[in-house]
């Protein structure tokens, strides 16, 4: 059956539940979070409904159609240029008054739209009553009460979409009229535009209103045509008039008239309970945003997330570790061919397994972060920390992508689109990689766990994260006071009420993240591990083998107890292995790098791990797993942590230095790619890479040298 297609855009204020609704309607899994600016790109999805295929587009939230930040421009351009068949204006029910501003602008647009009065569950809970029928009449559009959370009104919404599309139910479109002086100006300008064939398709009245609102894009559009001369005169006339009569300007008057219309509609249709009860949000904020407690609470929340990640994660990690140990022990006798055995045991199990054991930690970290995002604390954190951020030339809102960066830099870099000022945005993009991402977590867990007692390990990790934040802030300050000088953007941000994240959505997100991690381990990391195994095994030197052979014969023949001989043979084996490694391709590359990283405590093996770590930060652990497993003679049951602990060249100071280096040095290729895409040029990205390398080296040097002195 050929289905009729309807394209429907979901538009509305930030945080009104568009993505939630989109997910319910199309079965998609777009990210949902309780703060403004979660969605930053348009997303498409569809649903087959009867004889129709409804194509939904989820758009970034916007407060009005005169856009402000880059992601809001996406929405406006979509609505104006792509002209969907229908717009569903999603309204945040409990916050109707502000949400209706966008509705009034849609009313002016001469576009088919209907409204979804979302979060109807919260409306009822708060005891607010809304006269939907009357509101429909006033707004001139259909209104369907919905709840994306409780899945109320979804069918009714779909039915309305089809009926409005087929014009089966009409509602008399209502026109919002402004005060007479503005109407006169609008009519005059619209009249001029109507006579030009360029503007025939566009709605002249809408263009006129936008011109009076000094909308830059519409200005540019009209300016190209000769009619502009006349239009400009009319605009100036309107400006003079507004100044004379109201001591104001047309833009202000238009906004005021819209608000007056909304005020009237609210008065007529919405009843609030007599007495406003204090909400849970009020009580939580009394503590969380308290003048004295605010900052400690903030620090505690972040600390708690990392504490949980480590302490709750480590027993689970132990289980996985022994599981991989058992697999390795079970598989080993089955593999007769020594090459295959080495690939499987030293390569795949040590490398991929070495990364997979951190799955519990990664999961806990993401659960913690998604709780922050879903609960509504994000905006609060930005509020509490804005002053600090401002000091360092950033914006409180920059903090939201920074927190996201603890999970992964890529979405975090994209999330900076919510920042309006290009310099703020660039500065934030450049410091996000200092916010230690989830992929670096395995490195810390491994090293902190191996070299510090369990009660200290979590705090060592937390200190590394803190160092990242400090470096990020200082770098921002440096950037903003040198190359990116510019006044920073204003801070006007809504604090949404707290909402309990549903267990289902948190678990679902966690599962998604876990699957992604496993997939990455099975593809990218597996590939990397096989390559690393190969380059650290070949070329193989027969000369070293022959030498080892003769040595072992010599030991056998020499005088001495059986135990002495055994020890000597073992030492020889170890030496042979590491000579072979050094002879291999990886070993030679490592040896080239070694002089550079020697001062910060790394030998050539770590050097290799750092190079391969550019592919993805987990690969640092895999590479070390493989290289150290190859050199290991089997005493420490193959567990990387144990091998490292027994390795004489690896000390606490090395561990600390390595953690700092991994924290700061060049981000993975995927993140670099996204940086380039968001910035648009290679030059800043390349300069940035040089900067972080130098910085990582210097800080590691300081840490390593002082750790050698102190520890």
């Amino acid at each position, binding site marked *: 059956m050929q289905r009729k297609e309807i394209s429907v855009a979901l538009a509305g204020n930030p945080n009104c539940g568009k993505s939630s609704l989109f997910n319910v309607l199309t079965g998609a899994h777009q990210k949902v979070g309780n703060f403004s600016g979660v969605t930053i790109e348009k997303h498409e999805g569809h649903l087959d409904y009867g004889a129709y295929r409804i194509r939904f587009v989820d758009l970034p939230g916007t407060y009005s159609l005169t856009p402000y930040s880059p992601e809001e421009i996406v929405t406006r351009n979509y609505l104006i240029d792509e002209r969907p068949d229908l717009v569903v204006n999603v309204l945040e029910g409990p916050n109707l*008054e502000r949400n209706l501003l966008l509705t009034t602008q849609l009313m002016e647009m001469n576009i088919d739209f209907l409204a979804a009065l979302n979060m109807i569950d919260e409306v009822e809970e708060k005891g607010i009553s809304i006269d939907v029928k009357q509101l429909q009449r006033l707004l001139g559009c259909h209104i369907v009460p919905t709840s994306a959370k409780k899945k109320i009104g979804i069918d009714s919404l779909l039915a309305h979409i089809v009926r409005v599309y087929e014009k089966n139910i009409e509602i008399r479109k209502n026109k919002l009229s402004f005060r007479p002086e503005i109407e006169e100006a609008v009519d005059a300008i619209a009249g001029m535009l109507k006579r030009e064939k360029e503007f025939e398709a566009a709605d002249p009245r809408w263009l006129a209103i936008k011109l009076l609102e000094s909308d830059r894009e519409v200005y540019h559009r009209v300016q190209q045509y000769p009619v502009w001369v006349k239009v400009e005169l009319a605009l100036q006339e309107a400006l003079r008039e507004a100044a004379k009569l109201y001591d104001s300007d047309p833009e202000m008057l238009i906004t005021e008239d819209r608000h007056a219309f909304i005020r009237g509609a609210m008065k007529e249709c919405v009843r609030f309970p007599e007495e406003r009860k204090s909400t849970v949000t009020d009580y939580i904020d009394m503590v969380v945003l308290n003048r004295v407690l605010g900052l400690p609470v903030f620090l505690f929340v972040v600390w708690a997330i990392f504490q949980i990640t480590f302490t709750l994660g480590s027993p689970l990690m132990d289980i996985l570790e022994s599981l991989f140990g058992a697999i390795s022990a079970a598989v080993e006798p089955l593999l007769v061919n020594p090459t295959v055995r080495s690939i499987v045991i030293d390569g795949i199990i040590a490398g991929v397994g070495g990364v997979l054991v951190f799955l519990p930690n990664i999961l806990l970290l993401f659960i913690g972060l998604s709780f922050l995002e879903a609960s509504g604390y994000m905006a609060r954190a930005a509020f509490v920390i804005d002053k600090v951020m401002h000091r360092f030339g950033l914006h409180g809102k920059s903090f939201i992508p920074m927190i996201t960066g603890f999970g992964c830099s890529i979405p975090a870099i994209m999330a900076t689109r919510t920042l309006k000022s290009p310099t703020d945005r660039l500065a934030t993009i450049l410091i996000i990689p200092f916010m230690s991402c989830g992929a670096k977590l395995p490195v810390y867990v491994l090293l902190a766990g191996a070299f510090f007692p369990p009660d200290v390990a979590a705090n060592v990790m937390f200190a590394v994260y803190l160092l990242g934040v400090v470096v990020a802030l200082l770098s921002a300050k440096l950037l903003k006071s040198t190359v990116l000088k510019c006044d920073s953007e204003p801070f006007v*941000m809504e604090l949404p009420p707290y909402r309990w994240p549903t267990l289902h959505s948190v678990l679902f997100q966690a599962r998604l993240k876990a699957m992604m991690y496993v997939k990455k381990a099975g593809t990218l990391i597996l590939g990397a591990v096989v390559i690393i195994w190969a380059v650290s095994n070949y070329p193989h030197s027969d000369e070293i083998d022959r030498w080892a052979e003769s040595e072992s014969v010599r030991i056998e023949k020499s005088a001495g107890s059986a135990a002495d001989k055994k020890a000597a043979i073992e030492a020889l084996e170890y030496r042979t292995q590491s000579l072979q490694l050094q002879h291999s391709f990886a070993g030679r590359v490592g040896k080239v790098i070694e002089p550079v990283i020697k001062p910060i405590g790394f030998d050539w093996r770590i050097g290799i791990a750092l190079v391969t770590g550019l592919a993805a930060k987990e690969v640092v652990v895999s590479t070390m797993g493989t290289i150290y497993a190859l050199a290991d003679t089997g005493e420490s049951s193959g567990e990387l942590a144990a091998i490292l602990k027994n390795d004489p060249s690896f000390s606490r100071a090395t561990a600390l230095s390595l953690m700092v280096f991994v924290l700061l040095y060049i981000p993975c290729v995927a993140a670099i790619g996204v940086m380039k895409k968001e910035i648009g040029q290679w030059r800043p990205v390349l300069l940035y890479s040089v900067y972080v390398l130098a910085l990582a080296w210097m800080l590691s040097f300081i840490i390593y040298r002082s750790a050698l002195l102190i520890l």
Partner: protein
Amino acid sequence: MSELQVGDKAEVTAVKAEQAVRRRILDMGLIKGTCFKVLRVAPLGDPMEIFFKGMYLSLRKAEAEGISVHKTGRTGDGVPMSCDKEGITCCGGAK
């Protein structure tokens, strides 16, 4: 507006900020005639949080300076706010 204390209630009389800022403030619904209440100031002294038309908004003092207000009253500590009798917009609802 930046001089208001926690707990103060006020009415907006004019919004005179730089254009982009002003637009954002207006879009948020903070226009001439809106009554609001100062709920709190952030731990480090900036930004501040206000409540009006049923929503919580935070803005920096620098932005607040562009908004002229006249103080209409004062109720205690500012948190949590109960419905006030005179200003319909203040608690987000008409009687």
